[in-house]
């Protein structure tokens, strides 16, 4: 009997120390991440830190797993913007600190990441990268009244709460804009769609595209779906599109699958036009992909790494120098997010000692008044429901590079 009592006491002590340890662990952890981010940001900036205090921006996205490409690109884009801002004197004299946490593309982990950022002292959230995570987290930010701006959460519900805004186009917007663009420019009369039915982004665009197509002078002759489990062989879908006599194939998908579709269509002798959304951005950088196949592909994207304007050139150069890759639109979205926060915070006169809720109220109030010239659009403005307003740019691939249409 005594042994039992002892074992109970021991296990209770264990659990208690475990839980208490976690409380301490979290604060210790916050301290470590602070020092690492500070070390990562510009050294010359560190000297000025004392002046206006620090402004803590958190980010959440997949840094491991299948979607890591998007999370890492966005993190890098945000990092570049933060470094630039710090080198130029910060926001209202405040130095910016960044802490970007991994969510493994899992809504539950995303909420955990949010809570751990809250312990770190985050004041504004630049996240999440993906739609489902963004929706789950916006539920929590609304409860805490923390300002959230998602760079690339494109599902409608991402900005359902009034503290949430976004940088990218929403899925329906892309679908509608694509259908209108094809219709208004008379690109085709018979359109086939190949989309990923297991992907939120792809099926979201397709739905609105199909709805809007009814009002446009073309008809959808084939709508072929594939899923994440079988995305290497597209001959069936391409064959159906060909048999239906489509003179344009709409691809609301990501570039990896699109590059396969283009290659396979070519080898099957299916000569047609291809039209895509921002997911196709990056197709020219796919390894072992013959860019000649992509000749003439049109895409509606807010960002093209080959654009000639000064800002894009500078960003692409810095990105290549730092991370050794060409940035994609996710990186650009991340970059614009930080500058949007900066513009809004400066307009609202946010200071480092304001509470999270006060910052949110202040920034929310001015979001509809600011206009940001970013990589993904000039003069971007926001409506109170969180949607950005910017003109979609259509580009066409010509001689292995993106050219404006």
């Amino acid at each position, binding site marked *: 009997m005594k042994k039992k009592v002892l074992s109970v006491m021991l296990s209770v002590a264990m659990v208690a120390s475990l839980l208490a340890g976690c409380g301490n662990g979290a604060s210790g952890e916050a301290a470590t991440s602070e020092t690492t981010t500070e070390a990562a940001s510009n050294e010359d900036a560190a000297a000025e830190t004392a002046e206006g205090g620090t402004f803590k921006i958190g980010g959440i996205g997949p840094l491991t797993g299948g979607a890591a490409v998007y999370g890492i690109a966005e993190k890098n884009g945000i990092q570049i913007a933060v470094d630039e801002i710090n080198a130029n004197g910060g926001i209202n004299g405040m130095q910016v600190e960044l802490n970007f946490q991994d969510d493994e593309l899992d809504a539950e982990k995303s909420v955990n990441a949010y*809570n*751990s950022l809250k312990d770190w002292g985050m004041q504004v959230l630049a996240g999440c990268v993906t739609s489902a995570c963004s929706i789950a987290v916006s539920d929590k930010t609304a409860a805490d009244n923390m300002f959230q701006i998602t760079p690339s959460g494109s599902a409608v519900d991402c900005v359902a709460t009034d503290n949430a805004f976004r940088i990218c186009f929403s899925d329906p917007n892309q679908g509608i804009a694509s259908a209108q663009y094809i219709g208004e420019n008379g690109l085709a009369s018979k359109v086939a769609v190949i989309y990923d039915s297991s992907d939120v982004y792809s*099926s979201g665009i397709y739905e609105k595209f199909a709805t809007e197509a009814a009002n446009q002078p073309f008809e959808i002759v084939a709508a072929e779906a594939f899923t994440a489990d079988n995305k290497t062989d597209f001959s069936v879908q391409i064959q159906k599109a060909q048999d239906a006599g489509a003179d344009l194939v709409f691809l609301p998908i990501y570039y990896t699958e699109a590059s396969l579709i283009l290659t396979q269509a070519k080898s099957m002798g299916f000569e047609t036009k291809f039209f895509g959304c921002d997911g196709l951005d990056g197709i020219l950088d796919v390894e072992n992909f013959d860019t000649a196949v992509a000749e003439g592909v049109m895409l509606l994207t807010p960002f093209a790494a080959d654009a000639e304007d000064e800002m894009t050139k500078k960003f692409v150069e810095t990105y290549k120098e730092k991370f050794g890759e060409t940035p994609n639109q996710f990186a650009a979205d991340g970059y614009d997010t930080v500058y949007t926060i900066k513009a809004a915070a400066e307009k609202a006169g946010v200071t480092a000692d304001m509470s999270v809720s006060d910052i949110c109220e202040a920034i929310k109030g001015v979001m509809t008044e600011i206009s940001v010239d970013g990589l993904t659009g000039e003069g971007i403005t926001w409506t109170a429901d969180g949607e950005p307003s910017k003109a979609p740019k259509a580009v066409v691939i010509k001689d292995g590079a993106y050219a404006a249409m």
Partner: protein
Amino acid sequence: MKKLRKETKNNLITYGIVILTYIIVQILVATGNMSSLMQGLLVPFCTYVIVAISLNLTVGVLGELSLGHAGFMCVGAFSSALFSLAVKDSFTVAPLRFLCAILIGALSAALIGFLVGIPVLRLRGDYLAIVTLAFGEIIKNIINAIYLGIDGNGIHISLKDAMSLGLSEDGRMLIKGAQGITGTPHDSNFTIGVVLVLVTLFIVLNFMDSRSGRAVMSIRDNRIAAESVGIDVTRYKLIAFTISAALAGVAGVLYAHNLSTLNAQPKNFGYNMSILILVFVVLGGIGSMRGSMIAAVLLTLLPEVLRFMADYRMLIYAIVLIVMMLFNWSPDAINMRKRLMAKIFPKKSQKEEA
């Protein structure tokens, strides 16, 4: 004082641990000593504890390997979230609505578990593991393909896309295929979670101690002997498997009502999750409910407290998992622990030996 049976005493200790943990956590929260991360993790802890106990019923008591438990969790999550979303505006008493959601989640998971169990429990060992793995994937893929909406004319369902539902203007989408369910009311909280953990423990521990439970364990230990004394093998296996599925469904309900968005991805309801649940059970000790609980909490907590390691997080997690397994289950480590215990408490071990 009447002397308690060994099992009863053991069970009381298990309940005691849960209740004590609950009290300690409440004190820590009330005094503001708990980080937001920990507070956010409390409900997931309960979710994974319940699902670990439920799988332990299949693996430890029934002695069969199931690799599809995330599938049952998925059924519970989706059916209950669907119910809560559909009645969110008309049924505003949150605790009562959540109770209904729990019952719906448990019953639908039990139904699927029963249907899956009929063909599956005719197999043994590895074959059962593979078939349950397949069932888990089927459930996830079906849910990813369902589009369900509601309008004035009733419920519309399609496996193709949202347009083919033909919803009228006032209609609303409930399940949007791969986009899943969005806008589930946030009904889960730690108190309900702990109550559910206690109910789960009560069901499983009493089942193990019941006539049916002993029949199930006799099948596990020696199927031929059990059959020879007239135990209906299929019936008892089905009972245990269905209860296990229902409890996994309850965990799914808790999961779904903790997040405002729910979609069936490989990450949360795929075989990765099923295997993670199995890891909880194996690490905590097959057949030991208390062990599963502790393992589930530890392994849910670990990746989160390792966040400061940034890129090395998952690597360290894997290494720690290996070390924990070795420490817990390697024969050398067990001997070493025994020797250590003997040194610290010389009297007790002597008494035990004698």
